[in-house]
């Protein structure tokens, strides 16, 4: 299960599992955001390559409009996925808390 919602302006909170089954709904939500957005991943338990694809597409769109996606609160095993895929170089990742 995945939940994704706008908590306050510029901050989106995502929780649960961002996998191939949930990628489409996450993409639909993120297609609506604009500007510089912080994605709070404190509750994100899992991400696969399908989820990374959603974030990549969103980041490309936001950067193209002088905005961008920042990530925060990543769990260590999620950080691993970002590192192995080189996505730690594509996103600004704030230290987890």
């Amino acid at each position: 299960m995945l939940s994704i919602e706008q908590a306050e302006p510029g901050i989106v909170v995502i929780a649960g599992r961002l996998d191939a089954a949930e990628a489409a709904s996450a993409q639909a939500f993120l297609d609506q955001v604009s500007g510089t957005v912080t994605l709070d991943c404190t509750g994100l338990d899992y991400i696969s390559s399908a989820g990374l694809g959603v974030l990549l597409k969103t980041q490309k769109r936001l950067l193209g409009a002088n905005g961008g996606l920042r990530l925060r609160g990543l769990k260590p095993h999620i950080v691993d996925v970002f590192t192995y895929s080189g996505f730690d170089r594509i996103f600004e990742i704030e230290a987890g808390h």
Partner: protein
Amino acid sequence: MTAAVSHRALSAADLEAILDVTKALAAPFDLTTMLGEVVAAAKQVLRAERGSVWLYDEPHGELVLEVATGIAPVRVAWQSGLVGACATTRRIINVPDCYADPRFDRSVDKSTGYRTRCMLTLPLVDHKDVLVGVMQVLNKVNGVFDPDDEALATALAAQCAVALSRVRMTSAVIEGERMRKALEMAREVQMSTLPASMPAVPGYGVCASFRPAELTGGDIYDVALVDQGLLLVLGDATGHGIAPALSVTQMQAMLRMAFRLGADLDTAFLNVNNRLTDTLAEDRFITAFIGVLDPGTHELRFHSGGQGPILRYRAAERSFERHRPTSFPLGAMPVSSLRAATSLRLARGDVLALVSDGVYEQENRAGEAFGEARVCRIIDEGRDAPVAELVDRLVAAVDAFAGGAPQSDDMTIVLLRRHEGASVDGRFARRTDALAGLVAFSADAFERLAIDSRLLPRVDLAVEELFTNMVKYGRGGGGAVEVRLAAIEGGIEVVLVDRDVEPFDVTRAPDVDIGRPIEQREPGGLGLHLVRRMADFVGYEYEPASRESRITVRFTIAQGDPV
């Protein structure tokens, strides 16, 4: 005899010469120098033209005369001729006219052109009453040897015998020490080539033990992960001393090199054999097992050059299979073609036991050998114990059996076991919305198989990526994908089977260049890239008959994994 000495007073020079020999007793002369000293002293004291010393070579029953450096010494049977007569009787022989004595051997004169007139032959018997050799002094200046000379010579001979005996003993000790040091070094080299630790092979337990015999032995083993799979070697060189220790070391280095350079099993075996044939001495060879295990297919292929028996424990039947050597020992003769390698497919719980002669042949106090049956019984009884413990049990059993009897050969044991490990199977429709079911299946399997939960996110990722790949690219009739999760030592094995599909080797999918700037990055290929990065092992097999794709992935807890 002592009375006879009083016939003539010793000259100062005589005394000095005898004292010189006495003094030389303590000097660290080598044998050649000491022989020269003794002959010079004899010539001077007895006023002889020439002198020589024949040394007694007891093991060969011969008397040996060192003629000159670089020329083979003259050897005669210790009973023959005048020297022989002197050696056997241990009595001085004074021959005033050699050519009138039938015991005199004229051939030496003939070959040297020197004419021997008279001769004094003296036994050299040391202080422990051991015959050291025979001294001969030839041609007394202006006359023949008289009883005074006999007495003098006897006194001198006693000193010479002690001196020579001492030198011989010293050189034997030095030689022994040199040999011991060289042997120690060779053993050190031999030991240093043994692997420092066992490689981690998912799905397998492997452990080895090597215990050198005190003096001799030429065992070696190797367990190493190479591109071809898991390399397993057990070698035993013939002979005693330094040579076997060094030749097995050489063989192991050659094998590692061959496999690192990409050689297959047959090529490595042939080439190493032929190279060893060139370099080893004629009478030397090495018996060796050389095998390569593919941990993905569980196929073990091996050649055994005279090394046997190779034992394979079949866990399902609790029985043993003995495999004979496939070839003769390495280094014995050049080979241009080989019999096919033996191939085994290890089932769950099966054990491959490589055990050297030193174990099978270890005797107890009653002279009975440890034997194969005992090895087999311990392996069967320890079928549930970890391999490391099994190796310990074997070693302890050999010790208990020997009961303090000396270890006469190196003992080497290498055990490889394919893990049992229970498994959980599931079938999932080839649709993306089956993912939720897969996640629940994995979580449940982790609990049932008591697998470390730290591995769950990695397993979830691998299962999802491989499964969605099958959903995307599988053009089959919509059949289910089989997923099996199995516990292995320190981790988990994941197997996904998809039938009626085209082959797609996930291990050969191109790597993603993760250093590219964002505008050049695409999500494609990331899934397999992540799986390969996170797994300890990824294997792919395709069965054309059933058009079946089988992907095997293994994960284990690494030392650095956070608790």
